[in-house]
C-alpha cells in the first residue's frame, strides 16, 4: 500500500524534481491520450511544445503571452503568502485597461511622448483603486476578500461593456462595440522589430526581480511572510495584519492594472468588450505553480503560455479538436499542482505484513 509520509525537512531534490516529474507524467499521459485518439503521439507533443517556439517570432509571442500572466501572478503571490486571497486580478486588469484606455481614447490625436507614462500611471491607479475596494471592505467590515474581489471582476467586465457600447465607442466604427484605435503615441514601443513584443515584457521581467528582492530582503516582505505563517507571532511583533491586507491588495491590483494597460496599449491597440481571455484567473494557478516565488512564477507563466500556443499549433497542423487541448491543459495543471506534495512528503510503499 502506498502512503504519504511527512518529511522532516522539505526535500531539496524535489523542489526541482517535482515539476520535472509533473512534466514527464503529462508527456506520458498526453502521448497515451493522443495515440488513443489516432494521432502520432511524438509528432503531437512536438507540435505542442517545440514547434511554437522554433523560431524567433514564436519566442516573442511566448514572451508576449506570458507577460500579463507573470505580472498578475507576481502581485497575487505576495498577497497569497500573507494569506490575503485576492482572486479578482481579472477585474483589476480590466479596470487598468479601462483607465489607461480612456486616456488614450480621449486624447487620441495627441503625439505627446508623455502619453505612455501617463497611461502606465493610469493603469496602475485603475487596478489599484479596484483592489482598494476589497481591501477597505476587508479591513473595515471584515468582508471576505475572495468573494468581494471575485464579484468586482464581473462588475468591471460589465462596466467595460457599457463603456465600449456607449461613451467610448468609436464614432466612425459603424456602431460596433469597440473604441477607436489608439494613436501611435499611445502604443507601447516594440522590443523586437517585426514582432509584437513590447517593452512591457521587459518591465515584467524587472517586476519579477524586484518582487524577488522585496520578498527575500526587505522588512515588508518579512512582515508579509510572518503574518501569513503565524498571525499570532506577527501580532506580538507589532506587525499589522491590516497593513498587510492593504499592501497586498494594492500591489496585486497595481500589477494587474499594469498588465491591463500593456494589453490595450500593446497587442490590442484599442478598447474592446473583452480585454483578457482570463489572464487574471489563470494567473492564480500560475502563482501556485510557481510556488509563490517570482522566478518560479516566471517559469510557470512561460509553460502555461506555451500550452496555449501549442494548442493552436496542433489544431492548425493536425486538426486536433480544441476539446483535446483543453483536457491536456487541465492534466498538465493537475500534475504540476499534485507533484508539489513530494517536497514535503515522501511516498512510502509498505506492506502491512511480510508475505513471502
Amino acid at each position, binding site marked *: 500500500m502506498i502512503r504519504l509520509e511527512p518529511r522532516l525537512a522539505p526535500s531539496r531534490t524535489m523542489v526541482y524534481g517535482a515539476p520535472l516529474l509533473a512534466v514527464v507524467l503529462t508527456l506520458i499521459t498526453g502521448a497515451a491520450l493522443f495515440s488513443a485518439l489516432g494521432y502520432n503521439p511524438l509528432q503531437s507533443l512536438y507540435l505542442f511544445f517545440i514547434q511554437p517556439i522554433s523560431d524567433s*517570432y514564436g519566442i516573442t*509571442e511566448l514572451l*508576449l*503571452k506570458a507577460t500579463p500572466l507573470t505580472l498578475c501572478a507576481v502581485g497575487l503571490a505576495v498577497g497569497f503568502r500573507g494569506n490575503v486571497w485576492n482572486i479578482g486580478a481579472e477585474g483589476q486588469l480590466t479596470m487598468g485597461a479601462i483607465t489607461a484606455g480612456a486616456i488614450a481614447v480621449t486624447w487620441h490625436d495627441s503625439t505627446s511622448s508623455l502619453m505612455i507614462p501617463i497611461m502606465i500611471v493610469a493603469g496602475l491607479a485603475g487596478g489599484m483603486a479596484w483592489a482598494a475596494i476589497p481591501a477597505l471592505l476587508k479591513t473595515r467590515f471584515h468582508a471576505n476578500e475572495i468573494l468581494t474581489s471575485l464579484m468586482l471582476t464581473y462588475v468591471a467586465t460589465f462596466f467595460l*461593456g457599457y463603456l465600449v*457600447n*456607449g461613451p467610448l*465607442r468609436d464614432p466612425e466604427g*459603424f*456602431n*460596433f*462595440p469597440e473604441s477607436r*484605435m489608439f494613436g501611435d503615441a499611445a502604443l507601447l514601443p516594440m522590443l523586437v522589430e*517585426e514582432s*509584437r513584443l513590447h517593452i512591457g515584457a521587459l518591465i515584467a521581467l524587472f517586476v519579477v526581480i524586484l518582487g524577488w528582492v522585496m520578498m527575500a530582503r526587505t522588512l515588508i516582505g518579512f512582515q508579509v511572510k510572518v503574518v501569513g505563517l503565524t498571525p499570532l507571532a506577527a501580532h506580538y511583533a507589532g506587525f499589522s495584519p491590516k497593513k498587510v491586507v492593504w499592501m497586498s491588495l494594492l500591489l496585486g491590483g497595481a500589477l494587474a492594472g499594469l498588465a491591463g494597460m500593456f*494589453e490595450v496599449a*500593446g*497587442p*490590442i*491597440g*484599442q478598447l*474592446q468588450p*473583452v*480585454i483578457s*481571455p482570463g489572464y487574471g484567473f489563470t494567473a492564480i494557478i500560475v502563482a501556485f505553480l510557481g510556488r509563490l516565488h517570482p522566478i518560479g512564477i516566471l517559469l510557470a507563466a512561460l509553460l502555461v503560455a506555451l500550452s*496555449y*500556443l501549442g494548442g*493552436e*499549433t496542433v*489544431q*492548425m*497542423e493536425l*486538426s486536433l*479538436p*480544441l476539446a483535446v487541448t483543453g483536457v491536456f491543459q487541465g492534466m498538465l495543471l493537475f500534475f504540476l499542482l499534485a507533484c508539489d506534495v513530494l517536497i514535503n512528503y515522501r511516498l512510502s510503499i509498505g506492506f502491512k505484513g511480510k508475505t513471502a
Partner: protein
Amino acid sequence: MGKLKAALVAATLALGTTAAQAEEPAKFGFVYVSPIGDAGYTYQHDLGRKAIEEKYGDKIKVSFVESVAEGPDSERVIMNYAKSGYKAVFATSFGYMNPTLKVAKKFPKVAFEHATGYKRAANVNTYLARFYEGRYLVGLVAGKMTKSNVIGYVAAFPIPEVVRGINAFTQGIRAVNPDAQVRVIWTNSWFDPGKEREAADTLIGQGADVLNMHADSPATIQAAEDAGVYAIGYNSDLSKFGPKAHLTASVTNWAPYYVKRVEEVMNGTWKGNQDTWDGLKEDMVQVAPFNDAVPQDVRDLVEKAKADIIAGTLHPFAGPVKDNEGKERIPAGSTMSDGDMLGFNWYVEGVVGKLPN
C-alpha cells in the same frame, strides 16, 4: 540504370521549380470564433471550407483553428498561417478586423479575406452576405403566419448587422401585415442557450406567436416548439430542434464565395481591396425548406419576392420608410444605400422600443 537516373534528374531540373511547387499543395487557413458545432454561424463557414476541400482534394491543404478569441490571440493565429506559407487566410469574425490588417501589412503576398468587417487593404478583402434579403423573405412568412400580430426577436448585440436584420424582417412582415409589431430582446451574448431560452419564453409570454433570432444556439426554436408557437431559424436550417415550430430559416451559404476566391488564388488572379456583399442572387443567402404548416400561397409569395429581389425590382428598404418614432428616413422613390445600411442605428416602423444607446 545510371543513364536513366541521369535523364530523370535532367527532366526534373528542366521542369524546374514549377514541378516542385505543384507537388506541394497550396495551403488555406480558416479562423473561427466559436466551436464548429452542428449548426450556426461557424458551422456555415465550415461547410464552405469543406466545399473547397471537396473541389480541390489533394491539390490543397485546408486547416482551421476554432474558438479563437477576438483580440491578441487571433493576430497570432493569423500570423502563424501567414508565415507558414499559407496562400490565403479567411478570418471569419468581425473582431479579427484589426489583427487581420496588421498581419496583412507584414505579408503583402498572402491573400487575406475578412468576413463582416469594413476595413480593406491591397491584400485584404472583406465579404459579407446580404442576410437582410433572407430576413425580408422570412418576414413575409412571419407576417402571414402570426395570429396575435406580436412577433418576437431574440437578438445578440445591438450592432448594425443585427439591427439591419431586425429591420428587414420587420419590413417583410409589414409588407403583408401592417398591424403586426416586432418585439426585441437583447441577450448581449452570441452564445448563451439559457439566456436565449429565457428571452424566447419571455417573448412568448408577451403574446408572440412567431419568433426569429440572431444568436448562435437553437434555444429559441426549442422554446417555440415547447410552447406550441412558430419560430424561424437563422444561419442554419434548425428544423430538427423544432419539427413543428420551425417554419423556415434564412440560411447563409459561403461555399460559392470560398470556392471562387480559392480558385483566384490558385490561378493568380486574386485581387485585394475588394468588398463583396452578395445575397440571394449569388446564392450566398438562401431560404430553408418550408414547414408543412406554411400554406402554398405564402410559399408563392416568398418565391415571387425572391425573384423580384434577384431581378432588382424589390428592395427591402425602398422608400418611403419611417422610423418607429414616425420620422421619414427613406423618401419615396429612393432606396437605402449600402453605406447607410452598414451603419444602421435606428428601428423601422413596427419595431417596439428604442435601440439601446
